[in-house]
């Protein structure tokens, strides 16, 4: 078996997400690459949750609508998803009385749990056992994974799983040992956190907000290991101001939120620009406007974050598309912020942030950049004129330097000015840093190219690249994924032979298309999806065939 798609569905509270990630881990042990997408409404119990697990020999970062195995913990899963079963696919379901009725492999999860005196959530362990059997996963692997990733009541969970394992029958999805290295599985949020820590982040401030909450939880859980400070303040305004305070004191600082929380940070963003205090802001996009569809995704905040803040100032913006990129470019964002004293933004989206990926740590190395520090000579001027607009840093506590930072327009020392020449000078000094940023990222890949050379070129960004890369592969197309969105890279060498330019993104107006057009690149066709679900590979192939080819 080279590549399969699995759907696990049930109610919130059934432990669907946990089950899905364990399924991924089971296959991962055989050397498979995995990608997990969790689809869940904004509620804690009930409703309908499902997770899609993609399992493949190659790295894949998208799912298909069509699945090879459906695991149904409730009836809704069948109602909603049975039609998505591929030919030759299997349905595995809880055949306990009153639960699911359908064709396929029935195992009485609920009854098994009852028999073993487990808690009702342990139905998911039964499902795991059954899945393992269907895929002919070695029982020893199941034990290993349970001991490692289900530390609570492991034995009971295993007993339940074993019973289901024994009751299920093997399917036609037999796992193979791929003899390739196993990879860790982490979420986009975890990758962001790791990238920040590697780039020297000392403090993380955040107010919980989907889809970025995972960064807060991950960093809080690991604060001692990373030797960092993690703070959850009263609201997002406090978050950004505290962060700027800590950065002023010399601590590298990051914050994380979603669109609505970022809206509250915009005044602070502008302060960061005027005071030239470095800050990195992670914005996880979700379906908006306003509260919108909070646990679902849209890529609809690009122009908002590009233009947020009163006044004119340089900023650095990256939009990674998978866990490795999230790791690496978060590091880049922190480094650019500190090297150039500009705000940097990591624009993620729910599918990336909460998606779980096989993570290839060999792809990128994140190293902490050292900011330009004051040499201690002469009088310290916080906003000293310099060739590229970047003034050397000193921090309070330095006995030879008085460090004055401010939200007002100011002279080089940091004292308020309203004089016309000084105002113009400082506007210019700050804007000059755009060149410093460009210099800083000279050697960093701003755009990624995939696929074959083709007349039709597909532009995509963020997590949507996963489906695009696969679809393009299938259709023989070229894909370009800008990752650095500001300063926007020069794309001329990438598209000089392009006949037709097509954009693929999950929003209703074509935000990347607009950005391309603003940068002088004609877009011939936009493939958009805005029902707050990601593009699926098979669906995208279909749409490209219909609309583009």
């Amino acid at each position, binding site marked *: 078996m080279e590549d399969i798609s699995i759907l696990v569905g049930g109610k919130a509270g059934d432990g669907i997400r946990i089950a899905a990630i364990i399924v991924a881990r089971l296959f991962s042990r055989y050397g498979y690459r995995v990608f997990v997408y969790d689809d869940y409404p904004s509620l804690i119990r009930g409703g309908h949750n499902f997770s899609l697990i993609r399992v493949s020999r190659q790295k894949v970062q998208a799912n298909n609508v069509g699945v090879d195995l459906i695991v149904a913990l409730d009836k809704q899963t069948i109602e909603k998803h049975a039609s998505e079963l591929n030919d030759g696919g299997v349905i595995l379901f809880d055949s306990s009385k009153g639960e699911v009725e359908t064709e396929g492999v029935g195992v009485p999860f609920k009854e098994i749990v009852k028999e073993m005196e487990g808690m009702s959530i342990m139905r998911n362990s039964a499902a795991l056992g059954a899945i393992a059997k269907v895929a002919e996963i070695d029982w020893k692997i199941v034990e290993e994974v349970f001991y490692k990733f289900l530390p609570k009541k492991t034995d009971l969970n295993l007993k339940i799983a074993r019973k289901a394992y024994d009751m299920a029958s093997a399917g036609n999805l037999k796992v193979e040992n791929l003899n390739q290295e196993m990879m860790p599985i982490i979420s986009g949020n*975890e990758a962001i956190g790791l990238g920040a820590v590697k780039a020297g982040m000392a403090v993380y401030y955040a107010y919980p907000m989907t889809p970025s909450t995972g960064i807060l939880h991950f960093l809080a859980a690991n604060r001692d290991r990373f*030797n*960092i400070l993690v703070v959850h303040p009263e609201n997002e305004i406090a978050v950004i101001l505290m962060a700027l305070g800590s950065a002023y004191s010399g601590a590298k600082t990051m914050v994380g939120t979603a669109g609505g929380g970022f809206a509250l940070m915009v005044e602070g963003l502008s302060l960061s620009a005027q005071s030239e205090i470095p800050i990195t802001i992670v914005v996880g996009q979700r379906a908006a406007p306003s509260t919108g569809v909070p646990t679902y995704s849209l890529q609809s905040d690009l122009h908002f974050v590009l233009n947020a803040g009163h006044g004119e100032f340089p900023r650095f913006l990256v939009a990674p598309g998978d866990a490795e990129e999230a790791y690496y470019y978060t590091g880049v964002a922190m480094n650019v912020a500190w090297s150039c004293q500009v705000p940097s933004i990591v624009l993620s989206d729910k599918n990336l942030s909460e998606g779980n990926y096989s993570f290839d740590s060999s792809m990128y190395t994140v190293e902490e950049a050292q900011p330009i520090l004051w040499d201690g000579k002469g009088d310290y001027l916080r906003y000293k004129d310099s060739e590229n607009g970047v003034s050397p840093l000193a921090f309070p506590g330095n006995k030879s330097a008085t460090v004055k930072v401010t939200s007002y327009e100011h002279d080089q020392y940091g004292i*308020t000015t309203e004089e016309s020449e000084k105002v113009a000078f400082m506007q210019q000094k700050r804007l000059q840093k755009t060149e410093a940023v460009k210099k800083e990222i000279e050697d960093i890949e701003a755009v990624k190219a995939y696929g074959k050379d083709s007349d039709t070129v597909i532009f995509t960004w963020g997590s949507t690249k996963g489906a695009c890369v696969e679809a393009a592969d299938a259709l023989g197309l070229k894909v370009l994924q800008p990752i650095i969105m500001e300063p926007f890279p020069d794309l001329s060498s990438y598209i000089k032979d392009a006949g037709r330019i097509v954009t693929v993104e999950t929003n209703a107006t074509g935000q990347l298309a607009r950005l391309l057009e603003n940068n002088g690149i004609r877009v011939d066709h936009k493939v958009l999806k805005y029902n707050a679900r990601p593009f699926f590979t098979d669906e995208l192939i279909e749409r490209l065939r219909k609309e583009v080819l």
Partner: protein
Amino acid sequence: MNKGNKELNSYAENTWCPGCGNFAILNASKKVFADKDQKNLVMVAGIGCHAKLVDYIDLNHFYSIHGRVPATATGIKLGNPELTVIGFAGDGDAYGEGLAHLMFAAKRNINITMVIHNNGVYGLTTGQFTPTSPEGFKGKSTPWGSVERPFNPLTLMLGAGATFISRSYSNRMENLEMVIDEAMKHKGFSFVEVLQPCYTFYNTYKIYNEKVYDLEEEPPKEHVIEKMTEWNYGSKGNIPIGIFYRETRPTYDESMLREMVPARRKEEIDIEDLLKENT
């Protein structure tokens, strides 16, 4: 190598109105700062007339945005707990735009000092009512006379959990210096409200000169609220100044940082183990 009273003056031109109560706060602060560890001292300001103070004193400062002094100061202290952080905020600033930050700073008992220049008016925006203006105040946004009752910031701070609560008056220099000095010495969140007449938009010198009196002794626990509410921020009651309340409890910075100094963090974190755990 401390700066004395004179060296503490920056070259910034002072643009407060003659007669403004802010001059006294400036002078008292400089006096108190003369004896402090100045390299580790950071002043934080909001936006308003009050805030210009930090431009005038030649020490580290973070001139922040309107209403956000306590949050900014908290961040500085958490970034480097060795710094002594003192915030200067206006009444519009701290009780209006950014009230929540002040309440949370008190709740957390973060070890900073907040000095509120309470002139009962928005000075810099030329005279609107603030959360502590008396009922009936005719400002430019309430020419009919404000219909709101003023907050009593002292009891709000007590309720929120401040461990040092004081009030002074810009026209009582000795008391003002004493209070700021004690506030800075206090380990924990220190609140100093200074009655500061705005000569131009709300000249309260006469009333305050008549009604202000020195507490002399810190009131016993059971009389704290009584003393705090003796004046209703309107026409009722005399106005005690001095220290109303002190208490010791663990500070937020200590509890959260446990000896860590984020500003000096230089650590290469190995993530290999963590990745292995996730494999």
